[in-house]
C-alpha cells in the first residue's frame, strides 16, 4: 500500500513577479461583429416565424400550431444565448470551469422546470377541462365564475353550519347542500 501523499512536492510557486494577467486572447473585432449580425438576423427570424401559421406544401398546408411556435422560438433563442455566451461572454476562450458552471446551471433550470411541469401535465387538469368537466383554470376562477366569492360568503353567513357549498358546473350556480344528517349517510356516499 503506497501512500498517495508521499509523492507530493510543493509545486513551484508561480512567477510571483508577474503582476498583470497576460491576455492570450484579444477579442477579434470581425468575429464579434458577425456574431452581432447573426444575432440581429435571428431576432428578425424569430419575429418572422412567429407570424407564419401555415406553410403551403403542394396542394395542402402544414399548420404551425402554438407548440411548434414555442419550439421554434425557443430553439432560436437558445442558439442566440449560446452565441452570446460563447463569443461575447468569452466562454469559448476561457478555462472550462466557467462552462461547467453554466452547464450545471442549465441542468438546474431544466430539472426545476421539467419536474415541476411533469407534475402539472400529469395532473390531468387540461384533459378534464377539454372534456368540459371543469371550467378553465379549475373551478376556482373569479372571471369565469364571477359570483363565486359572493355566493360562498353568502353561504357562510346565511347557510346552516356544516352545509356544503357546491358549484354546479353546468349552470354555474351555487348549490347549498344541507348538512349531512349523520355520519353513516355521508360515508354511504363514498
Amino acid at each position, binding site marked *: 500500500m503506497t501512500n498517495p501523499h508521499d509523492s507530493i512536492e510543493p509545486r513551484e*510557486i*508561480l*512567477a*510571483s*513577479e*508577474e*503582476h*498583470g*494577467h*497576460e*491576455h492570450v486572447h*484579444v*477579442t477579434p*473585432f470581425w468575429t*464579434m*461583429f458577425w*456574431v*452581432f449580425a447573426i*444575432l*440581429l438576423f435571428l*431576432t428578425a427570424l*424569430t*419575429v418572422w416565424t*412567429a407570424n407564419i401559421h401555415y406553410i403551403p406544401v403542394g396542394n395542402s398546408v402544414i399548420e404551425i400550431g*402554438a407548440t411548434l*411556435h*414555442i419550439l421554434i*422560438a*425557443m430553439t*432560436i*433563442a437558445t442558439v*442566440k*444565448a449560446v452565441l*452570446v*455566451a460563447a*463569443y*461575447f*461572454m468569452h466562454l469559448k476562450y*476561457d478555462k472550462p*470551469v*466557467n462552462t461547467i*458552471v*453554466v452547464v*450545471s*446551471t*442549465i441542468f*438546474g*433550470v431544466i430539472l*426545476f*422546470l421539467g419536474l*415541476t*411541469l411533469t407534475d*402539472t401535465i400529469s395532473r390531468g387538469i*387540461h384533459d378534464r377541462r377539454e372534456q368540459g368537466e371543469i*371550467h*378553465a*383554470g379549475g373551478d376556482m*376562477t373569479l*372571471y*369565469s365564475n364571477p359570483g363565486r366569492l359572493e355566493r360562498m360568503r353568502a353561504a357562510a353567513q346565511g347557510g346552516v353550519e356544516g352545509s356544503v357549498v357546491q358549484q354546479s358546473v353546468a349552470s354555474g350556480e351555487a348549490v347549498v347542500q344541507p348538512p349531512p344528517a349523520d355520519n353513516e349517510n355521508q360515508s354511504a356516499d363514498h
Partner: protein
Amino acid sequence: MTSAPKDKELKPWEAYIPQHHWRNATDEAEGAKLGMWLFLSTEVLLFAGFFCAYAFFRLLYPENWHDASRYYLDWEIGAANTAVLLLSSFTIVLAIRAAQQGNRGMMLIHLGITQLCAAFFLIVKLGWEYWPKIRDGKLPGIFFDYPAVYAQRAAEKAMIVAPDAIIPAAQVAGDYASTFTPGAHDHIFLSIYWISTATHGFHVLVGMFVIGWAMWKAYKWHYGPRHYTSLENVGLYWHIVDIIWIFLFPLLYLV
C-alpha cells in the same frame, strides 16, 4: 517590480498589484471571473422562477395565453428593445477590446453607447409600454381593469360616431367591443409579464449603475491591457441581462 519606474509615471492599470491573499494577478482575475459566473448562475435560476410560472400557466391555459400576448403586448416595441440590447452587448464587447488594446478613448465611447442603449431600453419600456398599460388598466392580478376601460372606450367611441347617425351608436359600441374578448386568465398573464419585465428592467437599471462605475474607472485609467477584470465582469453581467431578454421577448410578445 523592483526596478519599476517611479509610481507616478505608471497608470493605475500598469501599477496594479493583486490583493495580498492572491498568489498572482492571473489567479485573481480568474477567480473574480469564476465568482461572477457563479453570480450569473444565481441570476439565471432567479429568472427560472418566472419561466417556470410562465410555462405552468401556459400549459394550463394555452389559448388564453396566446391571445393575451397578442392583445396586450406590442411585439414591435419588444423587437426594437431586443435589437437595442443586442447592440449594447456588442458595444460592451468592443469596450473590452479597447481595454485590451489600451485605447481609453474607444473604451469610453463604447461604454457610452452601451449606456445610451440601456437608457433607450428603459425609456421605451417606461414610456411606451408601462405607462400606456397603467393608463389602460392592463395591470397584474387584482388590479387588472382593462375590460372596464375597454367598455368605456367603446361607449365613448359610439358617442363620437353616433351624431353622424349613419350607423347606430349601439352597433358601433358593439362592433368595437366584439374585437376584444377578455380571457379568463388575462390577469395572470399580465402578472407574469409585469413581474418578469420589471425584475428585468431593474437589472437593466443596476446595469446602468455598474456601467457608469466602469466608465468612471476607465476615465481614471484603471483599465488597460494588463488589468481590466472588473470591466470584464460588468460585461458579463450585461450579457446575462441581454440573454434573459432574449428568452423573455419571444415568450411574452410572440408565441
